[in-house]
């Protein structure tokens, strides 16, 4: 009869000891297995680092934050299963951003769940899924996006191109899937609308992750005589494109939204110096960077450069909203969060009330050799720990200048 006693005593001790204070659990539902698991892992590390920072400062309203990662495997169906697991455990905050297709499924599922459980709603923080629809036609009260959408990023690039008087024509080349198609359509519309007279001289959609030799695309870009290239490509499709353009002897700027991550700087290195440009929420060489200490600690801890800066802003804003509300209740936090102005590390930010789309400063960077490798002095930090190349910050676009109109007709549940 000893064993049951020990078990019972152990169980009682566990129950009594428990966590010191109550916990606010946040479920991360990004894909943690499969081809993009390294991205999911990078996001998990950023979430974890931020949660530790908030907890070290006392948590929110006397409660500590806790991260629960449930593998959504990058697919909408699997992520909905993961979502169910999260709600079964009583988790009221979820986050995901690896895929806009998954995000759309989650927005839908969260909406349904909250209609059935009006007393225990769930809030969805989307950290990186940038499909326009999520804050336009498909917008939802329970969804908050902390990354500018495709239109805003393309708009920010178009704004920079207009200021660069030398650019009269652009060539669009994109991966043939949802994001690439939206990037291409968005670029054509925004360049035509803003009246700067920049002509689109090429518009290629190439198969996603299938092209081994981009030299023919480079030849085509060269023949078109375009002054700049705009692309939503990422990963290998971006690395190979930049290498091919460099091999073809072209010196045109390649304007990207993912050029500073996903292995691109590692694979491109010197091939993209002076040509590879990125429109980003944060870059390591921003002057008087308030995120520097956090980024340094992250790099030291994981041997990897910080990329998902939006996750930092996301959790900072969440903590602030909860403190303002004086409660960790999802509905109260959501009500504080919408329309909230926040002094983020990179400048004033706004969670727009109409569509729950963040408005936050963006930075244009150009790949240069690092100061240590003979590049400009301000390129102190390299990109992706390559050691040889890093992004020089060319300009900052204030949050207000990135705003785009929305068609969102938000239905509020109260």
């Amino acid at each position, binding site marked *: 009869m000893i064993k049951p006693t020990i078990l019972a005593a152990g169980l009682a001790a566990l129950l009594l000891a428990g966590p010191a204070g109550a916990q606010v659990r946040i479920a991360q539902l990004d894909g943690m297995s499969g*081809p993009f698991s390294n991205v999911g892992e990078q996001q998990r590390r950023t979430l974890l680092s931020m949660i530790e920072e908030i907890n070290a400062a006392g948590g929110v309203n006397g409660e500590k934050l806790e991260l629960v990662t449930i593998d959504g495997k990058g697919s909408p169906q699997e992520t909905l299963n993961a979502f169910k697991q999260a709600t079964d455990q009583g988790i009221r905050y979820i986050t995901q951003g690896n895929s806009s297709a998954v995000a759309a499924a989650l927005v839908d599922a969260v909406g349904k769940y909250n209609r059935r459980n009006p007393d225990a709603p769930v809030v969805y923080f989307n950290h990186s899924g940038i499909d326009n629809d999520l804050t336009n036609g498909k917008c939802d009260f329970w969804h908050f996006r902390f990354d500018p959408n495709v239109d805003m990023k393309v708009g920010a690039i178009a704004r920079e191109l207009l200021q660069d008087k030398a650019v009269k024509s652009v060539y669009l080349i994109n991966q043939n899937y949802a994001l690439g198609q939206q990037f291409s359509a968005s670029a054509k519309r925004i360049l035509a609308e803003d009246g700067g007279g920049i002509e689109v001289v090429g518009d290629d959609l190439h*198969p996603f992750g299938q092209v081994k030799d981009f030299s*023919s695309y480079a030849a085509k870009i060269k023949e078109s005589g375009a002054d700049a290239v705009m692309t939503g490509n990422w990963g290998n499709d971006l690395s190979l494109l930049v290498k091919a353009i460099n*091999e073809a*002897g072209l010196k045109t700027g390649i304007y990207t939204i993912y050029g500073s991550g996903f292995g691109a700087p*590692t694979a491109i290195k010197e091939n993209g110096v002076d040509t590879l440009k990125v429109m980003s929420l944060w870059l390591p060489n921003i002057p008087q960077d308030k995120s520097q200490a956090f980024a340094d600690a992250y790099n030291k801890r994981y041997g990897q450069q910080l990329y998902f800066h939006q996750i930092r802003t996301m959790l900072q804003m969440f903590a602030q909203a909860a403190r303002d509300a004086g409660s960790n209740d999802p509905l109260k936090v959501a009500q504080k969060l919408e329309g909230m102005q926040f002094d983020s590390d990179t400048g004033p930010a706004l969670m727009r009330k109409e569509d729950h789309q963040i408005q936050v400063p963006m930075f244009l960077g150009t790949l240069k050799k690092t100061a240590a490798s003979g590049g400009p002095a301000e390129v102190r930090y390299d990109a992706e720990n390559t050691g040889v190349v890093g992004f020089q910050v060319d300009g900052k676009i204030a949050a207000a200048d990135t705003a785009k109109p929305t068609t969102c007709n938000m239905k509020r549940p109260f």
Partner: protein
Amino acid sequence: MSTLIITSLNALSFGLLLFLLSAGLTLIFSMMGVLNFAHAGFYMLGAYAAYTLGLHAGFFPALVLAPLAVGALGMLVERFGLRKVHAYGHVAELLFTFGLAFIIEELVQLVWGKAPVGYPVPQALSGAAFTVMGSPFPLYRLFVMAVSVGVLLLLYLTITRTRTGLIIQAALTHPRMVEALGHNVPRVFMTVFGVGVALAALAGAVGAPMSVTEPAMAHAIGPIVFVVIVLGGIGSLKGAFIASLLLGFAQNFAILYDLSPYQLALDAFGPGAAGMLDFELFRITIAQFAPLLPFVVMVLVLLVRPQGLCGRPGSGA
């Protein structure tokens, strides 16, 4: 005009690299009757081995050492794996290499991680070899072409013109006779397998700076290699050569043309008649169709010549 010349050269270098890669596969098949599904995996191992060795020994020594190391690994695989499975027939061999492909992919992820590793073109080979009417042709691509042609010429001469080649060929058709003459036939097969794998590794090592070295690279190139050897006729080196170049040219040139059936009709007959073709399917341009081309060409050729371009009738898969 310069676009056409540069694209031809790019297509040629891509085609030759493809040949270097598929030559090992077709060599192994023609000599041993084994369709090695792990071939693309050895290609990837070659790229990673060259990356790691390159960090310590430098680019050029790594280019030699990596294929040797991976080739030696291939010989071990033959000696302690394939040879045992051989007794159970070709299906068992096929399944064995199929499983091996997955093991290699997972091992690479465990050892080198999931993110790409940087493997740049060495300083001595960067820059342009020459310019065609203002368009530079990269020196590295020229180097890849030279390596491919050189190695394959060496291989061809070894098989057809030397005593070693004679024994290999004889071991294929008359293994008992060759054994009776005092040659170690299993060792011949082991060597052939090792050389085939080393060729894949060399293609990986030499081709890596042109592409991205990451764990999905085997998966990405695998189907194309099979298209090459099926199209060329399984087991035919000459066929693989023709098929590689054909695919290189077809893919690179298709990208240049933004023509679609709808656009053609619009230009020829005006909007009225073209309206009949105004569907998504007919709006697909040749450029968008490019990645499908290898598979379409393969299916078409197989319909007309089931044995492939240069295969012997009845020897096809």
